[in-house]
């Protein structure tokens, strides 16, 4: 239960923080730290909740934007980055980048309260 709540909270907070242009792009990492301090879990679980939250959030956002855009820009960007023009890989890469940062941020948070 704690795990699912953590995931949802990190995702929600991160999305909300992202709406404020004054915050940097990595504001979600701060959200992950805060949530994992507030809801203590085992370190690996904290990591996973951050990881999954941002994987889902960034993945879903990118997926929705891309769908509406009919893959026009993602195909081009996947041609600039070494992804062979494959927009699915680009969405996965996007999700993975957010997930890794949030995972480690959440892990950091979990050690704050851990004895």
């Amino acid at each position: 239960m704690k795990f699912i709540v953590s995931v949802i909270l990190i995702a929600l907070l991160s999305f909300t923080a992202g709406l404020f242009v004054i915050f940097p792009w990595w504001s979600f990492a701060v959200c992950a730290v805060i949530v994992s301090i507030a809801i203590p879990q085992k370190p690996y679980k904290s990591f996973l909740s951050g990881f999954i939250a941002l994987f889902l959030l960034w993945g879903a956002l990118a997926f929705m934007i891309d769908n509406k855009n009919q893959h026009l820009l993602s195909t081009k960007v996947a041609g600039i980055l070494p992804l062979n023009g494959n927009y699915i890989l680009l969405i996965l890469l996007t999700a993975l980048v957010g997930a890794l940062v949030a995972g480690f941020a959440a892990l950091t948070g979990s050690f704050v309260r851990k004895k």
Partner: protein
Amino acid sequence: MRIIPLLISAAVTTGLIAALNMQLPSGKTKTPRLGFFLSPQRGFWQNAEPADVSFDKDIKIAGIKNNAEVYFDDRLVPHIYAENDIDAYFIQGYLHAKFRLWQMEFQAYAAGGRLSEIIGESMLPTDKYFRRLGMVYGAERALEAMSKNEETKQAMDAYTDGVNAYIGSLKENDIPFEYKLLDYKPEPWTNLKTALFLKLMSFDLTGQGDDDLLYTNTKNFFGWETFKKLFPQRADSLNPIIPKGTVFEKPSVEVKQPANLDSVYFATDKNVSNIIPPVVPNKNNGSNNWAVSGSKTKSGKPILCNDPHLGLNLPSLWYEIQITTPTYSTYGASFPGAPCVIIGFNDSIAWGVTNAGRDVKDFYELKFKDSTMQLYWFNGAWRKAELRKEIVKIKGKPDDVENIAMTVFGPVMYDKSYKSKNEDGKYYAVRWTAHDPSNELKTFYKLNHSKNYSDYVDAISTYECPGQNFAFASVNGDIAIRQQGKFVAKWNRQGDFVMPGTDSGFLWQGYIPAKENPQMMNPSRGFVSSANQMAVDSSYPYYLGKASNFAVYRGYIINRRLSGMNNITLQDMQQLQTDNYNVLAEMVRPVLLKYIDLKELNNDEKKCVEYISKWNLKNDINEKGATIFKLFWDSVYHEVYDDEYAAAKLPLFKPDRATLAEALLKDSNYVFADNINTTYKVETMKDVVITAIRKILPVIRDLEKNDQLEWGAYKDTYINHILKIPALSRLHLPIGGGDVMINATTANHGPSWRMIVEMTTPVKAYAVYPGGESGNPGSKYYDSFVDSWVQGKYYPVLFLKKQEARHNARIKWHFTFVKA
């Protein structure tokens, strides 16, 4: 708290964020800040425009006097309805910024020699070149002139305010894609940037002047007599803009030729420059325009056509627009970066431009007392040079400072401190009319407002640089053309070579008065046209510049076609603009084939000749004959001249293809046919032609193997993104044509805007350009016209009155500008 794991994971987290928050080196360039770039709420995903996007918007804005409306049609072309000119230009600036901000700023950076600031040291040679050429100096002087005129000052101010109003409204996530890719942010627009952009066009269209250095080397290498044979002054096939035989008035400017020309100018003992400029405008920069009178059209009203040939880029150089106020209504192609319509029409007149090609950029060799460049020798005494400092900022590196000596011969572009590719330690100043204060914007402002022929003449008569052939047609039934610019009154060959810069003897002596520029109105033949050929025959009393500045064949075929056409419709004109007929091949093919004896050839060679002889002379995409002819013709060219050039150590200028064609047509014993490396024999054209055929056979075989022998595949036209990123470009476009055809589409160059206007009431027009209205690679309007352009299709232009716009079925979106 578990300190060690905490510290480790905190370090990993911040390290990750830091790495994703910086640009990492990747080959010669750098990656974007990946974390930011990939962030769906900040980075490039925010530029992925929904396919069904609505552009509708109400914009509350300070800076306009009255409320205004903009209607967008289904091609995203805006139709601006403002209550006054100032508001119209404000909105034009706003729209240019909304749809093309990155491009317009990037072009201004390029013109101002500031690319190193955003890209890094790799752009320093280009930046230095533009600074030393005096682009900023010229733009500053032009800005002064434009600011002195109240109309253009107000137009520029309003335009700049409009651009900045848009920039001010931008949030970080909305900034255009390329800023995120290169990691920088837009800065405020200024009137100087508009001036810089216009100088970029001057450079593109009159910048060939560095040829003077290569010309000088070439003259020194061959000697004056041989040089004259390699570079004849006029092509016999020339079909000038003003028909041959026209009588010109006596010149009002008498030009005095310096007395010692043979010893100091045509002499070849001086070994001059070995400079290779890092940026050279494309030699094919040119255009077609023509206007036919009502006597030759089906409607009985004139038709005007124009297609400027420039580098093909995405986002396009042009932005299509309609601007309507209570006093005028104009439509056409505008430059993102400047107010007004540049090529277009209004409800009374239409105008189109082609490049005049006149030489207005010359080099002088100066003598300085020492390398501080404070004193230079002029008319028998040391004269003080002013020093101009140009500071080039470089991303991640200390600034570069260029000290440029300013003299009566212009800025000293090349000096001992300028490490160009092959610096030779000499001082060359560049005298260029683009350095002089001038107000080109005034011409376009006035053309936009013109009602008739005399307004047109008034509009263009003050236009200076880059010189253009302004074609004109009006609903009154008039057609006209005039070559207009600030042209130097030169003695024959003045400025073809580097000139001595130690006294006033070789300075420019004056300018040709506008009324003596080549021009005609309502000629009896029923049409006017221009295609970058020499404007006049040799009876014109002023020197035009070296022949290699001018094209020959497009003008020839256009005039032939127009002479034969009657009852012309808009559709006929579409066909003419996209005509792939190769008149050069028509002229030289029989001459070349005459030298071939089929009995001497093997089967492969025979097959090759057969392809050439059976070819229909059209450079259509599926013609193999067109490719083989081109290979053959190039091969003949190299066979004729390469041996003469082989021993050259300095960069030289090569003869024009037209020179070879003309020589073949009149001279069966062309002196350069002999291969000077073979002492046992004197080769003739017959030998040349056979060798040429033999040399291309392996190339043809390779092309055939790769399925690239058809002309479209061989030419392989593409439209490059300005940053030359393939993923953002359009590649492998199946389009015919070539440099000597009316459809002047080469690999990355061609008709950048095609326009056909019939002067009926209301005016009817067709247009297309190889791009799209949006500069955003994430928009479907980024390249939405490209396929039509490739297929030679046009869009019927929507030229609407305000009350019609609201209800027109093709109008899709609507901006309301409300005064805040």
